[in-house]
């Protein structure tokens, strides 16, 4: 099944490039959805079924929300001259260089970052203990505080979204808001 992993990775790479540099927003949104589908395929190949399903659900909902976003607020085309591509390309290349230096600074073991050996072995023989029920027990056992903090973050995000996006109260001549 290593071919499925490579196909998913190729789909993700091409779609991520289109999503990042396409001038049309709807094309970017569609490419982002394809990239997320590819990422889900990678997770599935690595034996992370639950993560793959979550990724697909989140990707589809995000794509729908972004299409609504583009429809409601108007689609804008990116029209930048080629000379302004320098900063984004330099930024991306810098991040890539930093990550590669970080991956290589771990000594001889860091060579595994560049090999497909452990990945291919994991694809051929998916490790046990990664089923959804095991992940659920770990989540509410070892990582309960992380889960609670995450829930609190999502709750505050929803509250903050409501507060930020509400219309301003209009002052009436009597002085009170209407």
């Amino acid at each position, binding site marked *: 099944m290593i071919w499925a992993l490579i196909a998913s990775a190729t789909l993700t790479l091409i779609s991520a490039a289109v999503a990042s540099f396409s001038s049309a927003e709807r094309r970017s949104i569609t490419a982002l959805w394809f990239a997320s589908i590819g990422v889900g395929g990678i997770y599935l190949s690595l034996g*992370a079924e639950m*993560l793959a399903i979550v990724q697909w659900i989140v990707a589809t909902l995000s794509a729908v929300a972004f299409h609504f976003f583009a429809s409601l607020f108007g689609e804008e085309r990116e029209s930048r001259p080629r000379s302004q591509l320098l900063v984004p390309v330099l930024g991306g290349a810098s991040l890539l260089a930093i990550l590669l230096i970080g991956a290589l600074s771990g000594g001889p073991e860091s060579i595994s970052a560049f090999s497909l050996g452990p990945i291919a072995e994991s694809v051929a023989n998916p490790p046990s203990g990664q089923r959804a029920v095991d992940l659920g027990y770990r989540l509410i056992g070892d990582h309960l505080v992380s889960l609670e903090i995450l829930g609190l973050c999502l709750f505050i995000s929803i509250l903050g979204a409501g507060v930020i996006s509400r219309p301003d109260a209009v002052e009436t001549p009597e002085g009170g808001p209407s």
Partner: protein
Amino acid sequence: MMVFAAVIGALGLAGVLYKRSVLGVLIGAQVLFMGATIALVVGGVQAGAGAQAHLFALLTVCVCVSQGLAAYSVAARVFYLKGRIRMDDLRTLRR
């Protein structure tokens, strides 16, 4: 595969820097998060701690949703105030 994750993350950062619209920056941030989650999962597989990595990747995906929600609401606020959404307009959320 770690290199692949790094390339995806770099593409996301380049997208964030390249785009001018809020939606474009949001899409770039999603690609950046995608690279981070791939790195977590692949690193977990290589280190033999797959389940832990899957959990943290799951938490990262949830944080990504939270970030998208916050950006969406800020965009709605800016559209309400300015009638359009450009990154250059994100100076203030007051009138």
